[in-house]
C-alpha cells in the first residue's frame, strides 16, 4: 500500500519557523512508523532527524506525536494509523531539530523525586526480603521506560514545565510504596510542592498515552492519598 507521511520539520540553523513535509512511500500493514521514518531518512531525505535506539519499545527514545497521539514510533503499526500519517515532536519540550526535543527539563523533574532506592539501615546478611504482595504493590510503576509520552500529553505540563509531571510521580510511586525503601517521606515532601502533585487535575491523558499501559492516573491518585493519610500500604 502507498503511504503518505507528513513530518514536522525544523532546522534552527536554516528555518525561521517549523514546516511540514510530505513523503510518499510503499509500506505493508505490519510496518512500524519507525520503519517508515528510517525509509524516508535512508532513501528520500537524509537530513531528517529523530531519536531511536532499541526499536523494540524498551528504551523509550522514539516517543513522538503520531496522528495527534503520543506514541512510540517502534510500537505503532501502519495497520493502526491508516495510509495518511502525521508525525510531530512531543509537546511541551523545546524542539532541537525535526522530531528531536530537549528532554532535559523532563529528566530534571525526574531526578528531583529521588528516583532510586534509599535505605541507610545496616545491610542484612542476605538480601532485603520482600513478600510477593509487597512487590506487587508497586509492580505497575516499575514498567516506566521514561519515554515522556505521559508527561508531554499532560495539559498541566504544557502550561508549566516546572510541574513535575506524571512520569516523575510514577517513578516516585515506584519507590514510595517499596517496603524496603526509607525515603518515602522525603519524596512526599517534594511532591507536596506548589509545582508538585496537586497540579494533576486527573485528566487521564497520561494513562491513555503510556505505551507500557501503566495506570498512571491511578498511581498519581495513590500518591495523593499517601500525602493526605500518610499510609504507604
Amino acid at each position: 500500500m502507498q503511504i503518505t507521511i507528513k513530518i514536522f520539520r525544523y532546522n534552527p540553523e536554516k528555518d525561521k519557523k517549523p514546516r511540514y513535509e510530505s513523503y510518499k512511500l510503499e509500506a505493508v500493514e505490519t510496518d512500524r512508523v519507525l520503519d517508515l521514518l528510517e525509509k524516508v531518512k535512508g532513501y528520500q531525505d537524509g537530513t531528517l532527524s529523530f531519536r531511536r535506539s532499541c526499536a523494540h519499545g524498551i528504551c523509550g527514545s522514539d516517543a513522538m506525536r503520531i496522528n495527534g497521539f503520543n506514541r512510540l514510533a517502534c510500537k505503532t503499526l501502519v495497520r493502526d494509523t491508516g495510509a495518511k500519517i502525521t508525525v510531530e515532536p512531543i509537546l511541551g519540550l523545546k524542539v532541537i531539530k525535526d522530531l528531536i526535543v530537549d528532554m532535559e527539563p523532563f529528566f530534571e523533574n525526574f531526578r528531583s523525586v529521588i528516583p532510586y532506592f534509599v535505605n541507610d539501615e545496616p545491610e542484612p546478611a542476605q538480601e532485603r526480603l520482600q513478600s510477593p504482595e509487597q512487590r506487587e504493590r508497586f509492580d505497575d510503576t516499575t514498567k516506566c521506560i521514561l519515554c515522556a509520552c505521559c508527561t508531554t500529553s499532560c495539559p498541566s505540563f504544557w502550561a508549566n514545565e516546572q510541574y513535575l509531571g506524571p512520569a516523575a510521580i510514577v517513578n516516585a510511586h515506584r519507590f514510595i510504596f517499596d517496603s524496603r525503601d526509607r525515603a518515602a517521606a522525603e519524596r512526599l515532601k517534594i511532591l507536596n510542592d506548589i509545582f508538585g502533585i496537586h497540579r494533576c487535575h486527573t485528566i487521564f491523558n497520561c494513562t491513555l498515552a503510556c505505551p507500557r499501559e501503566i495506570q498512571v492516573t491511578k498511581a498519581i491518585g495513590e500518591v495523593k492519598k499517601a500525602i493526605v493519610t500518610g499510609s504507604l500500604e
Partner: protein
Amino acid sequence: MKPRTVSISQRGFDFETSMWLFTRLSALLMYLFALIGMVGALIMGARTQMNLADVLRWTFMPNPSHVLNTNVPDLAPWSTVFWKVMGSLFVFFATSHGLHGLLSVLEDYISRVWLRKSLRILVVLVTLLISVIGIYMILTS
C-alpha cells in the same frame, strides 16, 4: 508486620495539600447540603405544591424568598436559623470551592508573574464580594 506510615511532620502538609483536600471535601459537603435541601423541600410539600424549578431553587438556596410563588401555604416555619445557616454555608463552600478552582487555572495557564498575581487578587476580591452579598441576602431576607 506493622503497617508502613509516614507522620505529618515527616511528610509535610502544606497549603497546597490543605486546599486540594478542602476542594474535594467542600464538593462532598455541597452534595450533602443539596440532599438536605431537597429533603426539606419534600417535607415542605414539594410533591404537590411546587414545580421542579422551585424544588431546585430551594435545594440549592434554601431561602423562603426563592419559593414565594409556590403553592406552599405557609413559608414562615421555613424561615428559621437552621435554613439560614444552611444557605450561608452553601454559599461559603460554593464560592471557596470555585475560588480554588479558578486559582488553579491561573497557576496553570498564566505564566506572566505580574498578571497572575493581579488576577489572583482580583479573583479573591470578586469571590469575597459575591460571598458577602450572598450571605447578607440570606441573613436579611
